[in-house]
């Protein structure tokens, strides 16, 4: 159950009733829903969700019904008869019928209220549905909150990586006692040769304790044993449940069978439980044991791995982080040349999967709550007006003997009905809004179930909670009016004449608050819009347009030799360049703008770092010469890589301008030597700096290694074309297929799309804040218009008198306009102050724009003026049109 609902529900029922009756019954409902929804389609799931929501509502009512009896039992008093409860229920039905009739009679008021609430609640529910799927829904592992990914931060550069050096992993394994089941893992695709046709499967490579870590028991056979991960152990594997069903026909005799995976035969020792995934977005069709060295290797940072662990019971996250920091410091002391500045820290698995999207989403939930607040303020104003209009009816009912309590319950029921209808319409709006929101989510959000985010029981509970809270708030506003009413006074003609100055002032203040909230959202949307514009116009240091990129995987068994791979890539690039649509083609290991932060130590051969010190890191990339042409990274000096830069020639590297500036001040880097491992490499070229990790990343110092020297069987191609890059794809793929039939393509995209994805969080914030700010502005303008119109209607007699005494029409119009603009000015002042204070929360989303950007503030004033002037002018014009003769005669 989402935490927000837990909080609300805990306050709707007495604590004991919630704990003993509601909570276990609610969990049963949830179990039932999940079990039944699993095998159904989207529409059937929606229907099931609606029925589940109804059952939750019935459960809530049932708990309310049982509350007096249950509380009495606790006080050792015999339960009273259930008559009072029944009486309450029948009163509720009477009130509901009466409210329904009243609202049907006042169709204009009902439509305005329901639509306003539907917009506010719908937007809230839609954002909450995504927030629930991304941030609140538990991961599919027992006690998943204790699972953490081990991250590495270089404290000298501030660069963080989500993986851990193998040397450090081995040492951490031996020293950390705040964590248990520390597991190294990796993933990828593997080719399985079983039956007539080989096929690709998603593989999870993990140290044997992965099943202990995730507290998962195999459906068949056994889990890995510690010996399975030792060097030289017989190769084994565990099949994923789905693969076992689809490819092995759920055959239990598969246990013990040998299956060829890649170039190795492996014995199947088990079948993973149904639904087993790790990481949660990874289907894990096969699980292979990962071998880790028993002792930390001398070159501690030559290999890296992902690592996940479980925080031990009784240990807090901060304690685990403190222990990792202390061990990192000890490792730094023991191995200064390799570990200087290396800090390891735990990050919860959920945070690692959600990444930086969590904060924009939380921010959006806050923004959309403000929209609901404006909608509520509008509805509150409508209710105040309505309460005044019904003052006489209420006084008559009181004079006939109706108690104030009874009338208050009646008003509460009416507002509850309004809110529930508005909420139902809002949920329908959200039903269509959620898929649009999900489409805006960055692809790197790897939370399972995001694609299926929608209106489920939890989200419906949220909607019901919002409706009930809104209804209670509005009902209280309406009911408070009754408290101060004397029946006789309400029946007098003076009471019918209009509203008091204090009531009007209260309504004006509510509207000023609405304007203020709208200004806060406008300022936020304006700042994010300016950041988005700045990101789109930033120069990444290379040309993004017209570049096709995709991964190529060669069959490992046929390309074991480096020479075979070199020969393939030589032929492949020659053939691709023959294509008339292709300008340039190259290959690299790291795709720019994907957040990659791989680094390598940089050390001049002629100025060695003193013993015991770790050289500074620079960005790492392995690229072919064609990569620089394809991305149009400018060559500043020297040359790019040639196909001749191979194993039999002296090693060479290329550096970026930032490296030259930093390590070779006042001299050329070309021709100088740098230390690579135990040898030297010559710098043969200097290229321009690029923003490698993302568009919002500062250009960094990078060092490029020749891809040609030892090409990998899996690489990423970058091809510059003279038109639509994707149009050239079929011809290029067929060229590559003609050279190698078993070549596999993956992650086909364009650099434009990669760049767009790198700013997806800002885009998400921009769209949502923009829509919510527009919605808030519209609602605030309607609020201003409503209050001004009502004031003019109430003051018709006064305005008529003024006109009769010689006031001009323009003077009257300006007087009314001035009142409206005063309200707007107060709202603007408060809103700008609050907006500037709250932009601190936006800081992580801003790029190239200060939080107190004067352009944004000026634009906010203009946009607000454009919306508010008509909202004030229309009632003012109506005021100027008052006929003095007619109004004085009435």
């Amino acid at each position, binding site marked *: 159950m989402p935490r927000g609902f837990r909080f609300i529900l805990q306050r709707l029922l007495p604590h004991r009733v919630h704990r*003993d*009756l509601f909570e276990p019954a609610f969990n049963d*409902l949830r179990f039932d829903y999940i079990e039944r929804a699993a095998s159904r389609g989207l529409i059937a799931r929606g229907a099931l969700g609606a029925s589940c929501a109804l059952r939750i509502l019935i459960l809530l009512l049932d708990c309310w019904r049982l509350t007096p009896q249950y509380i009495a039992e606790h006080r050792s008093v015999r339960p009273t008869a259930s008559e009072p409860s029944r009486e309450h229920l029948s009163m509720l039905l009477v009130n509901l019928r009466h409210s329904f009739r009243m609202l049907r009679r006042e169709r204009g008021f009902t439509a305005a209220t329901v639509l306003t609430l539907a917009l506010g609640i719908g937007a809230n529910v839609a954002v909450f549905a995504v927030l629930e799927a991304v941030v609140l829904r538990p991961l*599919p592992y027992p006690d998943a909150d204790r699972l953490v990914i081990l991250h590495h931060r270089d404290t000298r550069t501030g660069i963080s990586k989500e993986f851990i050096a193998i040397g450090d992993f081995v040492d951490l394994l031996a020293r950390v006692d705040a964590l248990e089941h520390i597991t190294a893992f990796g993933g990828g695709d593997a080719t399985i040769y079983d039956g007539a046709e080989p096929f690709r499967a998603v593989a999870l490579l993990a140290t044997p304790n992965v099943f202990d870590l995730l507290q998962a028991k195999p459906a068949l056979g056994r889990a890995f044993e510690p010996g399975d991960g030792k060097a030289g152990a017989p190769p084994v594997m565990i099949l994923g449940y789905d693969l076992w069903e689809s490819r092995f026909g759920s055959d239990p005799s598969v246990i013990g069978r040998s299956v060829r995976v890649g170039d190795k035969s492996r014995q199947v020792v088990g079948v993973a439980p149904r639904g087993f995934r790790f990481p949660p977005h990874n289907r894990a069709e096969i699980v292979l044991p990962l071998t880790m060295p028993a002792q930390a290797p001398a070159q501690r940072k030559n290999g890296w791995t992902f690592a996940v662990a479980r925080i031990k019971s009784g240990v807090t996250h901060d304690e685990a982080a403190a222990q990792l920091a202390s061990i990192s410091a000890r490792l730094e002391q023991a191995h200064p040349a390799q570990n200087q500045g290396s800090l390891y820290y735990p990050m919860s698995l959920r945070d690692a999967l959600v990444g930086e999207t969590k904060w924009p989403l939380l921010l959006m939930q806050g923004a959309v709550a403000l929209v609901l607040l404006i909608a509520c303020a509008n509805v509150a104003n409508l209710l105040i007006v309505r309460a005044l209009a019904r003052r006489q009816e209420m006084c008559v009912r009181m004079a006939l003997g109706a108690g104030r309590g009874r009338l208050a319950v009646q008003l509460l029921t009416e507002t509850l009905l309004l809110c529930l209808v508005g909420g139902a319409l809002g949920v329908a709006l959200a039903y269509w809004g959620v898929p649009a929101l999900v489409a805006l989510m960055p692809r790197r959000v790897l939370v399972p179930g995001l694609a299926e985010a929608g209106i489920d029981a939890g989200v419906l509970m949220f909607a019901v909670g919002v409706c009930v809270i809104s209804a209670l708030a509005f009902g209280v506003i309406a009911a408070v009016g009754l408290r101060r009413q004397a029946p006789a006074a309400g029946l007098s003609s003076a009471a019918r004449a209009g509203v008091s100055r204090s009531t009007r002032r209260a309504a004006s203040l509510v509207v000023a608050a609405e304007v203020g909230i709208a200004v806060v959202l406008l300022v936020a949307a304006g700042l994010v819009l300016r950041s988005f514009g700045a990101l789109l116009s930033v120069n990444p240091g290379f040309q993004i347009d017209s570049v096709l990129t995709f991964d190529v995987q060669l069959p490992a068994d046929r390309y074991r030799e480096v020479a075979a791979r070199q020969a393939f890539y030589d032929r492949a690039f020659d053939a691709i360049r023959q294509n008339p649509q292709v300008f340039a083609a190259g290959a690299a290991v790291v795709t720019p703008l994907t957040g990659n932060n791989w680094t390598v130590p940089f050390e001049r051969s002629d100025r060695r770092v003193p013993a015991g010190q770790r050289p500074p890191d620079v960005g790492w990339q392995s690229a072919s010469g064609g990569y620089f042409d394809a991305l149009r990274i400018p060559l500043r000096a020297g040359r790019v890589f040639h196909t001749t830069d191979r194993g039999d020639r002296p090693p060479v590297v290329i550096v970026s301008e930032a490296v030259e500036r930093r390590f070779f001040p006042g001299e050329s880097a070309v021709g100088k030597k740098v230390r690579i491992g135990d040898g030297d490499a010559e710098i043969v070229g200097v290229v321009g700096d690029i923003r490698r990790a993302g568009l919002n990343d500062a250009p960094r110092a990078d060092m490029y290694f020749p891809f040609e020297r030892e090409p990998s069987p899996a690489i990423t191609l970058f091809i510059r074309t003279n038109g639509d890059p994707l149009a050239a794809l079929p011809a290029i793929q067929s060229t590559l297929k003609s050279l190698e039939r078993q070549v596999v393509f993956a992650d086909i995209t364009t650099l434009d799309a990669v760049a767009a994805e790198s700013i997806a969080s800002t885009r998400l914030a921009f769209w949502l804040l923009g829509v919510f700010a527009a919605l808030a502005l519209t609602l605030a303008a309607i609020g201003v218009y409503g209050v001004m119109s009502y004031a003019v209607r109430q003051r018709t007699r006064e305005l008529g008198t003024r006109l009769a005494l010689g006031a001009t029409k323009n003077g009257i119009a300006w007087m009314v306009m001035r009142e409206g603009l005063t309200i707007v000015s107060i709202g603007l002042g408060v809103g700008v102050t609050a907006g500037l204070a709250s932009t601190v929360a936006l800081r992580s989303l801003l790029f190239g724009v200060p939080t107190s950007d004067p352009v944004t503030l000026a634009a906010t004033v203009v946009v607000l003026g454009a919306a508010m002037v008509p909202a004030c002018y229309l009632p003012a014009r109506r005021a100027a049109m008052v006929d003095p003769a007619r109004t004085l005669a009435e």
Partner: protein
Amino acid sequence: MPAATHLQFLVLGTLVAEERPGREIRRIIAGYGVRRTSAAFYQMMARLERLRWVEGWYEQITVGDQAVTERRYRIKPAGERAWKEARAFYESVALAAARRWSDA
């Protein structure tokens, strides 16, 4: 008369052999024609807990790919005594009735 009501006897009987989640107990007693709303059922279970006849706790399980919490129950020695007492009572009543039937 035994301390346990016939409904309590039924519920305790489902727990004599093994611990069970609440929803399973509710399903079993529904098989005997006992229809209670889930809130009323858990009210009864809370009463049994107060009598210290059963012990309840929460446990997290995985359904599909989602974690769900369920309330599980196990019988306590006092509950087992109450169940045995009720069973002995019902057996003696049944035996007496059977004797009367055969005498008649």
